[in-house]
């Protein structure tokens, strides 16, 4: 029935038909947004947080992988305090705060967000409040709350995606927004005796992705750019592209140095899944690149999105990455198709 309405030429539509088209289109948009939000949060709504536990896995050096119910969080802990890369789901924040407390005598000082997705940022507001900001100089003494809460660092576009212009409704509460953003390729930081590189990956999953490299510990926190249990959640509408995702994964491969026979050395914490080294990122990068090449060739052959989906260009990787109801192979193909069609 809906399709029939769309088949009317515009000049022949009655006001009722126009209204129905509007409602149908709005419903479609909302459905798409709901799907994307569910995907961005990696199926948060399906998780049972009451039963979920936090596990802390020592990685190497100052770094720990904090495993919640799905999303991985990176913890750097030392004499100066703590740094978290992402904060996971807000429903897990209390458990997260309790779990990380024992790794340093000093409080959390920095939260770094690798993108704007809810599974990375929804805990920002609560977790931030458990930390503090070290401030100084005359002016800060006059600002009552200047020391309250940890700083939240992210690439500028993360703030843009999480907030809204004055007068418009923000998609996330302002307490969760980054408090300190950067432009350009990289923001350096030195904390707990090691240099930390926050490196922007343009047009990857979105336009605001970063990876975080802890140089002394030799650990890369990859955020959602790299998962061992699902396809990359590319959001074309937020500036993401499959081409940029391949390049970002290649950057991680190039940044990592193996210890012996393609194993060990630099370790990589994925957004979801198990602790890895370079080899698994290579596997994942190769998969995304191969799927990209297939979709690109299909577009060149004039195939529509539906035809591309029907051709199943991810079939050989679906046993590994295609089992998530919140981010299906078709959803991944669609975002990849849109980004390649545009380029």
């Amino acid at each position, binding site marked *: 029935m809906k399709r029939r309405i769309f088949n009317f030429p515009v000049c022949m539509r009655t006001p009722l038909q126009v209204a129905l088209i509007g409602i149908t289109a709005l419903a479609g948009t909302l459905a798409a947004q709901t799907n994307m939000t569910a995907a961005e949060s990696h199926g948060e709504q399906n998780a049972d947080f009451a039963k979920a536990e936090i596990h802390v896995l020592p990685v190497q050096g100052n770094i720990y992988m904090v495993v919640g119910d799905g999303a991985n969080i990176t913890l750097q802990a030392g004499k100066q305090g703590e740094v978290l890369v992402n904060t996971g789901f807000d429903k897990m924040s209390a458990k997260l705060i309790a779990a990380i407390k024992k790794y340093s005598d000093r409080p959390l000082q920095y939260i770094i967000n690798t993108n704007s997705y809810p599974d990375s940022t929804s805990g920002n507001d609560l977790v931030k409040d458990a930390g503090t900001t070290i401030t100084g100089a005359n002016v800060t003494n006059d600002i009552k709350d200047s020391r309250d809460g940890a700083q939240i660092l992210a690439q500028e576009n993360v703030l843009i995606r999480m907030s809204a212009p004055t007068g418009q409704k923000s998609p996330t509460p302002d307490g969760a927004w980054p408090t300190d953003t950067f432009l350009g390729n990289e923001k350096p930081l030195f904390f707990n005796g090691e240099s930390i590189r926050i490196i922007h990956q343009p047009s990857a999953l979105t336009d605001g992705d970063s990876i975080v490299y802890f140089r002394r510990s030799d650990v890369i926190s990859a955020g959602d750019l790299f998962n061992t249990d699902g396809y990359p959640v590319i959001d074309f509408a937020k500036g993401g592209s499959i081409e940029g995702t391949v390049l970002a994964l290649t950057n991680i491969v190039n940044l990592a140095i193996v210890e012996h*026979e393609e194993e060990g050395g630099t370790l990589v914490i994925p957004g979801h899944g*198990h602790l890895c080294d370079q*080899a*698994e990122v290579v596997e994942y990068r*190769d998969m995304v690149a*191969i799927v990209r090449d297939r979709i690109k*060739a299909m577009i060149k052959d004039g195939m529509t999105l539906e035809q591309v989906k029907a051709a199943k260009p991810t079939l*050989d990787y679906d*046993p*590994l990455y295609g089992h998530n109801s919140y981010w299906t192979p078709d959803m991944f193909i669609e975002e990849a198709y849109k980004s390649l069609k545009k380029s």
Partner: protein
Amino acid sequence: MIQLFIARASSGIALAALLASGLAVARPAAAQMDFSGNWGTIIAEDFPERIPGPELGDYLGLPITAANRLRADSWSPSRLTMPEQQCRVHVSPYIYRGPTNLRIWEEKDPETQALVAIHNYSQTYEQNRTIWMDGRPHPPDYAMHTWMGFSTGKWEGEILTVYTTHIKTGWIRRNGLIESDRATLTEHFIRHGDILTHVSIVTDPGYLTEPLIKSQDFRVNTRYEGNWLYPCESVEEVVGRQPGQVPNFLPGKNPFLKEYLTNHPMVPEQATRGGAETMYPEYRLKLKAMEAKTATTAKK
């Protein structure tokens, strides 16, 4: 190749008999076999696959899924020119197939002399592997995966049975067929005098429809001969490759898949595509029926 296929099927039967004989004479758990020493590989079994290497498009006798088949069809050997691929290790289910020297030794608790672990060192890729014998559990899913995986062992009479998880993605055949990082491995180490038989059983629901069983033999090496090192340094072999470029063939566009058929014209194309049924002797009957049908069609 038909002969090879028959040989594979019959070696499976022989293997079952070997396992049965080992288990039939099973002794109490205290009666353990000592595998310690240096071992040299005997590479007669499945020689064409193990030493010259498998041909592209030969999936015969492997219980692969459609996903694994497509993965291999798309695989380009040029991927091995990428620096990050050059020193890739053969994973634990596969490494015993290679021309490797193998050293096995025991680790005992100094206080009780209880067996804590059995260590393996494979010369190929210089891989050290620990088989824990102290009853410790396997790590959680989120722990790191390695080329050799995490192994625990137990005695079944004189057979050492080992269970391994947390293995990285690797080969089941060196022409693009894979086992994924979800695969698990069960092994049996069986000693008959100076001969060690190693049996591997891989399960991988996404890429194998049935467990994949292989065996390989080693002979004890008392003269400590052979090469024990495998230094590997990756280099840039293809200059000018663009970032993010990964050699692969688009589905249906791999020009080398027919090479195996060309070199072995007696093998029907359908058989080369593999699948569980091509593992079993009954498949020969199906092949004969197919041949008869082809001949009848040709006559008409």
